[in-house]
């Protein structure tokens, strides 16, 4: 099978020589034309286009964007807010960074189309604190757009007004979770809220209906408004439409960002052909497909079963190289597409050390509200750290699994799953390294804890 070509919709101008992030350059490339056309249509038509497009959120959960918008409570009499999730904090994910730094007006155009469609008069871009330059770029871009009457009062001469403000986070991963983000935007600790009743679409920012969307998702909205939902739905595969940016990091020859039609490229094609395969003298060992919270896959695994394609069920028998990279296939093989962050580890990596590294992240980032998550993430960190530092015991694999099993499903937010899935999957897939742990199982690696 030949390797498919990248389809750069969102990243059309990323790293293009001479392309700058100012308004003049964006306008020269046809910028804000889609918004002008969208403003000439009824808002409900735009929502219809997004529904028809099948667009699924690119922030992590893959929730259908049009459905999310249609859940917004429009009868409450309260203002509706848009919150743009630019927290980009899921380890392994690095796509929104490039949009923000290199093509901020694409995002602003997507935001304005979304706001007008949903009658939003106030949007906030919640950007992680570690993007100080990104925050300045966005603020400048918003000021340029405002001066050109593309946002702010009476946009494009209509009686519709909408302000956009940038709000900086301060280094906490849990602010990426949408209700934690909302609390943070309200000036509090980012303690996630329990659902029900606090669905953002009904009781979000300031207890008003709120739409939270990822940066990349909102850029897709611009392209949907441009080509129409129907045409957009022809890109990618049924149920997994459009393009998606894969962020490949770790042990491949050419790490980086690659935009492909969803489901039109396999793991083997992406990692071997596009990214150049393993480093010299090395072999792939493990890959995490959707940010560090996604379950790890073992290179060389096979997956068999039946899956629904259109209206029919078909048998599949995939080696890991054959798995198409879409939301549903990755869920089928027991992991997830998540945020698009593909982390590759080769045979220099000791899996106990790798898990110890991940566990340290989650122990540091748990907000501490729920006992299973607060205590469990810390215990998992301590156990893996102890193993690495010479105190491994035969039962550690089972102990880790038992702690992880008592977190997932028992917490306020999905961080509970996010912190237990790595442990559950590492122990399940690399059990031999956990039961007979020895520091010298691999050679040539670098310290991970």
């Amino acid at each position, binding site marked *: 099978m030949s390797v498919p070509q990248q389809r750069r919709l969102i990243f059309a101008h990323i790293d293009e020589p001479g392309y700058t992030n100012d308004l003049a350059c964006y306008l020269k490339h046809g910028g804000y034309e889609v918004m002008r056309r969208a403003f000439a249509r009824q808002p409900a038509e735009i929502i219809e286009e997004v529904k028809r497009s099948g667009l699924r959120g690119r922030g992590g959960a893959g929730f259908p964007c049009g459905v999310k918008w249609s859940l917004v409570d429009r009868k409450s009499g309260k203002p509706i807010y848009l919150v743009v999730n630019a927290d*980009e*904090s*899921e*380890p*392994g*994910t*690095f796509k*929104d*960074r490039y949009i923000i730094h290199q093509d901020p007006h694409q995002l602003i155009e997507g935001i304005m189309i979304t706001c007008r469609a949903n009658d939003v008069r106030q949007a906030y871009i919640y950007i*992680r*604190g*570690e*993007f*100080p*330059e990104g925050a300045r770029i966005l603020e400048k871009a918003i000021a340029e757009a405002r001066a050109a009457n593309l946002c702010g009062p009476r946009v494009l001469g209509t009686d519709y007004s909408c302000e956009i*403000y940038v*709000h*900086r*986070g*301060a*280094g*906490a*991963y849990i602010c990426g979770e949408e209700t934690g983000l909302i609390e*943070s*935007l*309200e*000036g*509090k*600790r*980012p303690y996630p809220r329990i659902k029900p009743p606090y669905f953002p679409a009904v009781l979000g920012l*300031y207890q008003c209906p709120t739409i939270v969307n990822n940066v990349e998702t909102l850029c897709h909205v611009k392209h949907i408004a441009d080509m129409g939902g129907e045409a957009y739905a022809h890109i990618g595969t049924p149920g997994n439409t459009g393009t998606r940016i894969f*962020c*490949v*990091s*770790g*042990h491949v020859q050419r*790490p*980086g*960002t690659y935009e492909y039609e969803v489901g039109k490229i396999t793991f083997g094609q992406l990692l071997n052909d596009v990214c150049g395969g393993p480093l010299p003298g090395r072999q792939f060992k493990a890959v995490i497909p959707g940010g*560090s919270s996604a379950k790890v896959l073992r290179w060389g695994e096979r997956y068999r079963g039946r899956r629904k394609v259109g209206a029919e069920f078909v048998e599949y028998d995939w080696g890991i190289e054959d798995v198409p990279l879409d939301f549903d296939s990755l869920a089928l093989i027991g992991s997830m597409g998540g945020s698009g*962050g593909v*982390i590759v*580890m080769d045979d*220099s*990596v000791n899996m106990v050390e*790798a898990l110890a*590294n*991940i566990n*340290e*992240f989650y122990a*540091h*980032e748990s907000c501490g509200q729920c006992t299973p998550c607060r205590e469990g993430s810390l215990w998992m960190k301590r156990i893996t750290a102890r193993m690495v530092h010479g105190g491994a015991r035969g039962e550690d694999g089972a102990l880790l699994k038992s702690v992880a099993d008592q977190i997932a499903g028992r917490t306020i937010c999905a961080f509970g799953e996010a912190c237990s899935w790595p442990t559950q999957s590492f122990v399940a897939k690399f059990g031999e390294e956990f039961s007979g742990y020895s520091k010298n199982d691999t050679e040539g*690696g*670098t*310290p*991970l*804890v």
Partner: protein
Amino acid sequence: MNLKPDTLRSIDEAITHYPVKRSAVLPLLHLIQEDVGFISDEAIEWVAAKLELQPINVYEVVTFYPMFRRKPIGRRHIRVCRTLSCAIMGGYRTCAEFERQFGTQKGEVSPDGEVTVEFVECLASCGTAPVVMVDDELHEKVDVAKAGEIAARIKSEAAARK
């Protein structure tokens, strides 16, 4: 509080961005930390008064978010990414090299007051691992050799200032 006129202007502007004053806690803390270098007790009380909150409402925010600090740091802030993609590409060695170069330990101010080296979690630039932020600037593919070059530059800038 002795804040620069520019900071005070930005603070008043930030408060107008929200229908509820409390939302301005994070922006105000960022502005004050950029101006003064850290968040003192006095700053906490000042922000609380400014936003009509109790000091505890500000204190609990300062103590939760990793980017806010209660003490001054070195003149330059070196943040090395610790998370998996950077670690497997050598991030721990990079961090150790910065510690060695400045004779310091993570989280402390170096003896000459020049730097604070810290581990931070994923900086969303995993494709160019290992990455390091020096103040607001991102440095990519910082192996031990490149860490040495960055350290040399910081040292020569420090010498030029003296």
